[in-house]
């Protein structure tokens, strides 16, 4: 928050609690007075219970009074229930980075090694004797086991040459063995070209064969991933894991195709309906429904997880275009109809084509989930897939992976009758489980508090026409984790955020470029970008990338206008002087 308020002093203006120099009779009564003022300002009654919660928060939380009072005010504005725990969480989310490494300290291979049986330790010994580290050896053992689980036939094929030429095998059998081997080789060649589109006519099982071949290449990576959470049972298991995954993937692929077809058909017929009988009032409603459908495919279905980037961008652009059409309806209906026709054409032409690379990613996740379902691993290992730059869905998946949507998803799962209740695989779910074991409680606490705090800050502001959001996201830049804070401030129409009228503040500390703030201000779909940084060459360095990003935004329905580069130090001085003049913090 310190960096945030330095970079964007306006962010702080509404929150600033000016503590004047008037001498308090006692420190406590002064504090009480300030608390009461904040409650009054927000039209909330300060009951004795609430005062007690606030007091507990103030005394148990580190930091200055000013920032803690600001947290109380923010919480009241968000209509968050005033309890000590809620205030602490909001305070953590606003002021601290989301630390992940510290949160998952128990995940070491050494602990796993201690749970292994004598026999297994004996199996590892020869590997360690040849100079391998314990970690390395454990991973090799797990990799071997995974290979057995997924490719039982490989075991047969890998049997040394003499088994093929054993005298007891009839001539026919030898031929069939050789014949069996040939197509396998062809398949492994296919794997090399891993980014080919599938024709719809392709047999799904054949597709899966390729995916499994690709998976065998990456088992080392999977082994490394699951090594710290392995259960010793995995080593003895004879479960048909491959079969389980094959079945699941076949079902998933068929379902996704069906989902897409259904949406595509629905959108096409609704747009056809409004083109054929354009009645303005009904059109608005139908257009909103179609926009919701498009957004739903992007955000909630598996379609973007299987298809190429173009599909996701076509859907996003269509959603943006229809939003424009909806605005033209009243004043320029012809223009609206023209856009609607174009979108109808575009959506109907989207050819649902799963991309091999993406299915491969899903299969890897399914493998991990299956191992967890079969209780062969203790938890679903968490890995931040820091690829937010790729697409909106990738951003959403990163946030979901952190667990910022955890409770909403569980609550939705419970409301769906007959649906199998399965814990969503995210970091929060893992930490909540860890918390159940006493020794992990403290380490996980800060991270959990931060995640819940973000969720509290993202609370749906049901009665308001605006919505605020806060995301603390660790992102990977140059193999180093950096902490990105994003504040979103947007107008809201019904319960959906109006992206055409929103403000996004980004704050990050970078090694090379230093403290950097980015303000993205969207007014009626027009984007203005302000970049704040003290690096002299920044404009020259960054301009081409900003231009690229703006072009990307134009493709999906934004219009772009202005880029401004501003230094940070100016604001810093202003803040310093205002601190001198106006604030005195007492505790």
């Amino acid at each position, binding site marked *: 928050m310190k960096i945030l308020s330095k970079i964007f002093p306006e962010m702080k203006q509404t929150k600033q609690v000016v503590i004047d120099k008037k001498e308090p009779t006692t420190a406590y009564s002064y504090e009480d007075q300030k608390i009461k003022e904040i409650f009054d300002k927000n039209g909330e009654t300060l009951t004795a219970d609430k005062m007690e919660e606030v007091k507990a928060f103030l005394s148990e939380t580190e930091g200055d009074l000013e920032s803690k009072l600001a947290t109380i005010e923010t919480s009241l504005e968000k209509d968050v229930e005033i309890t000590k*725990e809620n205030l602490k969480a909001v305070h953590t989310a606003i002021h601290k980075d989301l630390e992940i490494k510290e949160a998952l300290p128990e995940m070491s291979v050494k602990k796993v090694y201690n749970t292994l049986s004598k026999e297994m330790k004996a199996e590892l010994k020869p590997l360690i004797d040849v100079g391998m580290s314990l970690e390395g050896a454990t991973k090799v053992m797990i990799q071997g086991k995974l290979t057995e689980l997924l490719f039982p036939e490989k075991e047969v094929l890998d049997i040394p040459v003499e088994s093929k030429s054993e005298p007891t095998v009839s001539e026919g059998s030898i031929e069939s063995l050789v014949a069996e081997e040939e197509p396998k080789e062809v398949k492994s060649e296919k794997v090399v070209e891993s980014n080919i589109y599938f024709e719809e006519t392709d047999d799904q099982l054949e597709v899966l064969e390729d995916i499994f071949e690709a998976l065998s290449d990456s088992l080392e990576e999977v082994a490394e991933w699951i090594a710290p959470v392995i259960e010793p049972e995995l080593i003895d298991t004879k479960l048909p894991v491959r079969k389980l995954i094959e079945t699941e993937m076949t079902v998933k692929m068929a379902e996704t195709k069906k989902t897409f077809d259904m949406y595509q058909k629905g959108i096409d017929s609704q747009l056809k309906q409004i083109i054929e009988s354009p009645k303005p009032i009904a059109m608005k409603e139908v257009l909103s429904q179609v926009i919701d459908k498009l957004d739903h495919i992007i*955000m909630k279905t598996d379609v973007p997880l299987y298809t190429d980037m173009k599909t996701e961008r076509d859907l996003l652009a269509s959603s943006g275009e229809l939003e424009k059409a909806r605005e033209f309806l009243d004043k320029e209906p012809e223009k609206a109809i023209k856009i609607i026709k174009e979108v109808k054409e575009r959506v109907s032409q989207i050819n649902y084509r799963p991309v091999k690379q993406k299915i491969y990613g899903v299969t890897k996740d399914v493998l991990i989930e299956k191992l967890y379902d079969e209780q062969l691993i203790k938890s679903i290992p968490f890995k931040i897939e820091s690829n937010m730059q790729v697409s909106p869905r990738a*951003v959403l998946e990163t946030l979901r992976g952190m667990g910022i949507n955890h409770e909403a998803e569980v609550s939705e799962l419970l409301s769906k009758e007959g649906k199998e209740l399965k814990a969503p695989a995210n970091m929060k779910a893992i930490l909540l489980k860890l918390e159940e074991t006493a020794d992990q409680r403290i380490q996980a606490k800060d991270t959990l508090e931060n995640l819940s705090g973000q969720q509290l800050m*993202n609370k749906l502001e049901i009665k308001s026409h605006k919505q605020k959001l806060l995301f603390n996201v660790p992102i990977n830049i*140059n193999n180093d984790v950096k902490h*990105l804070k994003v504040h979103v401030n947007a107008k809201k129409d019904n319960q959906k*955020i109006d992206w055409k009228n929103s403000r996004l503040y980004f704050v990050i500390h970078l090694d090379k470029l230093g403290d950097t703030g*980015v303000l993205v201000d969207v007014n009626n779909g027009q984007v203005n970008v302000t970049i704040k940084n003290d690096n002299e060459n920044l404009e020259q360095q960054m301009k081409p990338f900003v231009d690229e990003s703006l072009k990307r935004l134009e493709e999906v329905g934004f219009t772009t206008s202005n880029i401004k580069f501003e230094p940070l130090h100016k604001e810093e001085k202003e803040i310093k002087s205002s601190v001198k003049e106006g604030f005195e913090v007492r505790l």
Partner: protein
Amino acid sequence: MKNKYELYEQEYEHSDKINIAVGLIEELEDTDVVVEQDPNKLKELIDMDLRENVPPQIFELISCVVEMIDKAERE
């Protein structure tokens, strides 16, 4: 004029949401799924579904800025 039932409505909403939260915790008791256990916190976390209440365009803006920062820092 202030709605004279407002206070009751607020009360109702409050108890209703707490009930949902408590119900959720109870329902999950014997399952493998864990959620926030403090009902006063949990009740605030279930309304917002990022998949439904936030349009993809907001995430596209975030995605673009991350791309921009990432490229500039790598340069």
